[in-house]
């Protein structure tokens, strides 16, 4: 289309201009100097402003609850699917249904959690859409159950993780999960995930 061709020329000018401005500002600013909107202050920034205080190891432990795919952050404790099922019935089934499977015609409060592990199957569940088992542990521990967020013990979270992975046929029912083996579970959906490749510009992605 004519409009597009005409526009493209203009962009070249605009983009070139921006690159020049970008280079100029990055030279002036550097990474850790006054940022957006800075003009002229009466003095240079000190090495430190002296605001805030050092966080103690206790301060950090209190909040640092995340679990990474390499297992960093997994706590002591253990659990298996049988224990997990008992907890599930009491604390999870009200929102996610008795089995965690989608029940046609019934709209539950929480999403379905169990399905087969085929990539194209619906609904999206732990079996077909979750790339890391550590995410399951991290998420349940930080915010489940919905009405009593953060109330599960580490053993309960290990047990529930084992139950849900077993129900999705990713681990055997007798597997006892702990900090050593949970992060090593290969999730079926992991191979599907790709990092965003959109970069702006004329191409629609």
């Amino acid at each position, binding site marked *: 289309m004519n409009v597009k061709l005409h526009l493209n020329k203009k962009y070249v000018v605009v983009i070139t201009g921006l690159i020049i401005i970008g280079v100029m500002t990055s030279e002036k600013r550097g990474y850790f100097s006054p940022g*957006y909107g800075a003009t002229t202050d009466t003095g240079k920034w000190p090495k430190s402003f002296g605001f*805030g205080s050092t966080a103690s190891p206790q301060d950090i432990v209190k909040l640092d609850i995340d679990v990474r795919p390499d297992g960093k952050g997994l706590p002591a404790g253990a659990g298996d699917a049988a224990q997990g099922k008992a907890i599930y019935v009491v604390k999870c089934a009200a929102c996610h249904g008795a089995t965690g499977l989608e029940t046609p015609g019934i709209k539950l409060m929480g999403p379905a959690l169990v399905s087969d592990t085929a990539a194209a199957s619906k609904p999206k569940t732990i079996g077909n*859409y979750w790339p890391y088992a550590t995410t399951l542990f*991290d998420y349940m521990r*930080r*915010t489940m159950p919905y009405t009593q*967020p953060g109330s599960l013990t580490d053993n309960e979270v290990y047990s529930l993780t084992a139950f849900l992975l077993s129900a999705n046929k990713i681990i055997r029912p007798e597997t006892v999960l702990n900090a050593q083996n949970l992060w090593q579970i290969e999730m079926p959906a992991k191979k599907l*995930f790709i990092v965003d490749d959109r*970069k*702006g510009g004329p191409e629609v992605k």
Partner: protein
Amino acid sequence: MEQSENNSAGKIIEKKISRRTLLGGAMAAAILPVTSSFAKYIQVGVPAIDDPTKKLGIPPGKLGKRSPFESPVRKASDISSRSPLQDFYSTITPSDLHFERHHAGIPNIAPDKYELLIHGMVERPMKFSLNDLKRFPSLTRTCFLECAGNFRTGKEAMTPQDILGLTSQSEWTGVMLSTLLREVGVNPKATWFLAEGGDASVMTRSIPLKKGIDDAFIAYGQNGEAIRPEQGYPARLLLPGWEGNTNVKWLRRIEISDQPYFTREETSKYTYPVKGKIRMFSFEMDARSIITFPSYPQKVERGWIEIRGIAWTGRGKIVQVDISTDAGKTWNAARLQEPVLDKAHTYFRYLWQWNGDETEILSRAVDETGYVQPTISQLVAARGNDLGGYHMNPVTSWQIKRDGSVLFKPENYK
């Protein structure tokens, strides 16, 4: 529909008038027709004052309030509420009409209890009180926020609020994250950071450190006052141009790392199918636009119409908005309201003389990278039939009927 329309043409709304409004007004009330924003025509019960110059007005008060003739409201569901885009004349969203999206409700955080912890791959882990944050050199920046799942379609009776109400814009004030990172001393091997909220979802997202250094900031001010609870009081992360979910509210912790954490919100949510694969870490919001006037359920008259709307991009500035008044056959550039800001809603206007024939009107945003807002079919071609619900930014169209009624044009793509 969660609630009834309050701006349907011709619909009579009995508006409750408070005792205070009546102070100084006549005691008798009558039904008066009033013209509100654009083509809205509503009837409101107001005190009968034939001549306001002959009656003492109400005295000054502690808090201002809207005219009793204006009642813009959000539309709320269990998990979000949508901004009434059709009621705005410009691009700053009144704070009480800013869209909401949260995962476990709005927490009530006392400012004197608030702390932000920064730790991980740093020389010195630190905690900052709200007061500490406010002492650092500050900045003010206007930018949009938009939920990554901001697009609804499916029927003709949809307002801009129904279609795209999960975007809003504020003037934010806070401290650059880079200013705080300078204090803690970031390990040069670090590449990512985790941002964590202090609400009941304790929501987490992994963010490339480059964004944290480039233009991320921690906001405690919104439109000149303290940030609203729904927007993250007392402090939140602001990542200009990036999907709403990454702008973690009620920010309590930042952990510097050399890898992402693959949290629930960046794996099982906020990802979408692209030709058999699942795209993740899809941060920037691509360019898009919507005509907010005329729109459903307004009605237009033959003659001059100023078409109005907003356009925005997470990749910089909007450079052009094209308007079509013949269902996409020809396009002409709209006027952009200056100043056009980086990663911000940009108001556009286009004067059109409607001859009374049935037609469709469309807008198409172009950003400074040369990206042109795509059609649904372009998105299908790029991503496949199973599009999912995130990062959908198609050109949308309003049908103008012969009687002047305006209807959304839903496009089937599933």
